[in-house]
């Protein structure tokens, strides 16, 4: 998740990527997504992955998926995820929100 200025708010890696490379990778991906205009579609081809991104106010959620994954279903998943966070966010404190984020990401 990144904000409009490109700062990473949350990152989750399902493969091992070294810390040093993470920042560079994130910056690169985010640059590609932030530069898109409103009329463009939400799927970007990046190296050998596809990026699915969605914008919610000032927050961008970007998911990198492999070639054979269904992009539309990931698109829906992102939305579902945000809805769930929304429901929790208003009630519980910030610490628990981190937990929720972690545990939800497990469920791919």
């Amino acid at each position, binding site marked *: 998740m990144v904000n409009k200025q490109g700062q990473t708010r949350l990152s989750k890696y399902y493969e*091992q990527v070294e810390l040093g490379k993470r920042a560079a990778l994130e910056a690169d991906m985010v640059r590609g997504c932030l530069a898109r205009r409103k009329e463009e*579609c939400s*799927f970007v081809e990046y190296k050998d992955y596809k990026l699915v991104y969605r914008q919610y106010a000032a927050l961008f959620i970007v998911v990198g998926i492999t070639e054979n994954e269904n992009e539309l279903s990931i698109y829906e998943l992102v939305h579902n995820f945000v809805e769930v966070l929304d429901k929790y966010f208003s009630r519980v404190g910030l*610490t628990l929100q981190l937990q929720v984020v972690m545990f939800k990401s497990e469920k*791919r």
Partner: protein
Amino acid sequence: MSPSVRLQEMIRVIRSARTQGEERGIIQRECADIRAQFRQGDNGERSHSLAKLLYVHMLGYPAHFGQMECVRLIASPRYNEKRMGYLGAMMLLDEKQDASLLITNSIKNDLSHSSQYVQSLALCTLACMGSAEMCRDLAPEIERLLRASNSYIKKKATLCAVHIIRKVPELAELFIPAARSLLSEKNHGVLHGAVVLITELCARNPDTLDQFRKAVPELVQIMKGLVTSSYSPEHNVAGISDPFLQVRILRLLRILGHNNDTASDAMNDLLAQVATNTDSSKTAGSAVLYETVLTIMDINSESGLRVLAVNILGRFLLNNDRNIRYISMTSLQKIVQTDHNAVQRHRGTIVDCLKDQDTSVKRRALDLSLALVSAVNIRSMMKELLIFLSTCPLELRSQTASGIFNAAERYSPSKRWHIDTILHVLTTAGGDVRDETVPNLIQLITTASELHCYTVHKLYRALVKDISQQSLVQVACWCIGEYGDLLLKGECEEIEPVQVTEDDVLEALETVLQSHMSSPATRGFALTATMKLSTRITDNVDRIRSIVSIYGSCIDLELQQRAVEYNALFKKYDHMRAAVLERMPVMDKNSPGHTNGDTSGEIKEPDPSKPKPVEAGLLSEPASQVCDLLDLLGGTDTPLQPKPAPTITPTTTSSADLLDLLGGLEPIPVPTVTVYEKNGLSLKTQCDKQTETDVTVTLIASNSTQSDITNFTLQAAVPKSVQLQMKAPSGNVIPAHGLGQVTQTVLLNNPNKVSLKMRIRVSYSHQGAVHQDTVQIDSFPSLGWNCQPSINPL
């Protein structure tokens, strides 16, 4: 102040920092605080400090000093601290850190804990960062948990099992029986996990595929239930009942049904039902439909179903949502090879998408349009593509240009149309075309002899208008040089006649020569063209001589060399000038690797046409005279080749061309190396083609004994990362006395660029006895023009 407020407070403070430097300062202070906290030892504050540290880590700052704290917290009996510890472990630890080994024992204990939440914490952590050893240790535990009664635990355990299989594929057999039984679960979470687990199992091992094919009816049942079920509030997403599970099941069905008729038959009904019943007004429904289409395309489905799938994609194309248009084009791209006609029906929509705002959509539309071009629709498609070329974004230009050229080459209805199209492309996007376009176009023009007049007129006009597009200028100069007399005649049936005088033509060529926009190659073309005109025109020969002699002192070596040679042609060899500068014969179209083979191709062409013997004779005579000036390039046959100029001028070509210039006109014979010689049987290898990762080797076997060798077979083995493909041998009988040979081609694909070794076993019958022997070839050179394998007979 209670600590949790301090976390929120810290976050607020960090976010209020205005500059990066300020933020770094705040973070450093907080980290110092946290480190002091950790050193203090056990009090109630540890988990909160770790929480703050994790936040700092999320922002990208180093947090490795928290790792030991995580380990300590995991071991704590308090749930709060355990939870924070596990969270920290998932974020901070990975298999490369030593601290991860320390938590294995804690995880093991927690997996048998009485509270399901603690168990789930351990499962999540193991699934997130479990290393191979940890997985191996704990796999039996996980398998036991897969049969637990609690669906919460079962769900977590299945996901953990997926991770274990990814890390340690050998443990897959352990989970197969459990996975099978999980399919009968009611809980969607567990079901989803089970489907993922089965997908992973099948992906790793094709044998398990057969086992799980028996589960296809069960999966079909579940899907049917999902599709036809009434509104279920806990699984509903935009009107579809659990689309994520549906998509997963469809994907698993795809894997199971691929290349298997029985499984595919079982699925046909279901797929038809899903395709017709799913409501596609929302994205969730479209996602399910998309996955259905992909599945239909991949399995051996009946043709009615395939047509249905293509229609769904066509419907998607008309959708307002850009995302859906994009994915429909992506999938159409995949099926255009197999179901060409079905996709043709939607050609109009696809061509319209070329005008869309979005670059990704445009790229897809371009790929599809190029794939859909056929002999029938070439004219209209080409019109659209040319319009697209003039408006398309820069990164797509060269792809479009080369696509247009390919299509034009394959399907052009007439030569004139072909030439027109290429000229159009050159005028709009001349800078983005590939280098071999120029010689290809020239070759095309020479073959269309009836159009020479027309072509040269058009090119002249284009040249006069604009000399910035290098490829266009090069072709124009060449044509004007060759067919200048036709240009000057002025009349041409197909264009309105414009009177062009010799001065105009020379003026144009001089502009090209002097313009700073022209590249050295272009200048070379222009100079040669000027020279050729000296035989085609009558009045301004002096002007030409003066132009040529000016460039005799040019700084550019290539131009200087040419000018000096042409000067020589004027002075000493004036009698030969006409013959040398005659019209070029029609060139043979050779393979792309042979651009300079045109030179040798001409000399060796069987049908003798007049210029050739003259050419060959000329080459030897003046060669000696001018060779003192030619030590630059070393070859004595490089001079006096104004005819093959277009093929030599692109000095940016590969080393092949340079070697040809240096080594003479004959192609260098590829050497063969004998790798095995025994009992009269000799085996030679010859490297035919080499790129960075591929080598083509021909094995030639010959027999010098008195009697034939029969049943001759070769087997080859290569290192693991190299792929080997053996073509069929030419035969398996080698006649005696070296009268014949058996050849076999071997293709080696070496993506990792390891050193290539090959072990070959030969077996044959000779004079009634069966022989077998093994030879090892130790190294092939990785790069180089000559292929000299080093051999090591065993």
